[in-house]
């Protein structure tokens, strides 16, 4: 382990520094691409896409190093990250709005959630997810 750190960390000259900085730039770009990938190809994970988008922005900011400006690749990662964050927020928000307004959809969803986690919730909290939603919003009574 000591040798690993000796190789990785020490004797940092400006060439090695730039090499490591470019690795970070690429990491920012890759996270941006991964966030869009999660958003469009694996459409059911908008929240993961959002997290990856934030990672892309974080790495892009940190990859500036001693420079004032961001590299083009890192800036590209930021753009992809921002796009995926915005879209994932829109998807998540619209799902919640639909759940709140559409009674049939709510009933259908909570029947499914109850089948999966109903017993576990009943044991731990004394109430199933559908009962909880029924109390606050209503419209899940058939799911009991």
């Amino acid at each position, binding site marked *: 382990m*000591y040798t690993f*750190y*000796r190789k*990785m*960390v*020490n*004797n*940092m*000259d*400006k060439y*090695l*520094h730039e*090499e*490591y*900085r470019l690795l*970070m730039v690429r990491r920012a770009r890759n996270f941006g691409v991964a966030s869009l990938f999660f958003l469009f190809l694996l459409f059911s994970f908008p929240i993961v896409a*959002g*997290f990856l988008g*934030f*990672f892309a*922005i*974080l*790495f892009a*900011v*940190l*990859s*500036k*190093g*001693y420079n*004032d400006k961001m590299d083009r690749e890192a800036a590209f990662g930021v753009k992809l990250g921002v796009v995926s964050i915005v879209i994932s927020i829109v998807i998540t928000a619209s799902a919640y709005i639909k759940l709140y307004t559409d009674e049939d959809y709510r009933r259908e969803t909570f029947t499914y959630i109850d089948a999966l986690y109903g017993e576990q919730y009943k044991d731990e909290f004394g109430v199933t997810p559908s009962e909880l939603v029924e109390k606050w919003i209503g419209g899940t009574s058939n799911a009991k």
Partner: protein
Amino acid sequence: MQNETLQFIKDLNKKARGQLIGRYNVAIFVIMTVAFIQFIVLSMTEGAYTGSASSYLLRLVISIIVDLLTGALIFGKSQFFLNLVRGIEPITPKDMFAGFKSGIIDKAICIQAFYTVISLITSLPSILLSLGMFEISYEEYRSITAVISLINIVILFIEKLFIGLSFYILSDNPEMSVREVIKKSFTLMQNKKGRLFLIYLSSLPLLILSICAFFIGCLWFLSFFETMLANFYLSTIGEEPANPFTRPEPTPEA
């Protein structure tokens, strides 16, 4: 003056980002290890609590002792980041245990005691509430403890503006007594408290970004923030940190 301060903070940001390039793995390793040790030891103290008042007091005493001992770890972390910004090689995670050396551990514990005592005094009302000395409802108890925790954070933050450089000073001058270290920290922080406050403020956007990155991003943020604080210390003592771009290139051997 305002522009000068902003430029200073911008420079600190830049230096911290640059110094950490290629060294995030070690910095994150140190941050994680220190946090892990603190977490493990503190969760062990939870085992002492059985619900009675006496076990609550026992847990309190154990957590105070643990809090004091973490001073040694915090010293080691400060030393590691100080070595990192100075470019002292080899940079190894072993530095984080530097606080356990004889002659240092007692001083590190004494410095940490300043934080522990203040924290204990401010949280005294919530301790008394937990012991059931006053008849209040659970909702009242929750809101009062939340307010007390907030006050505690503000007071600790103000304290940091005065003695926040103590561990760095002790790292540079291990022969100094605790009194001298605290005195020097007060002297160094004269007219610079506003700058340190602005450093804390300027790191807020990155903190929010790292929290949004599923809290895992905090590992990168904390490395960056600790490096920035170490750079701030170097600026107060007028020392220039290491920079690979200003380092003279080795001459080729004949």
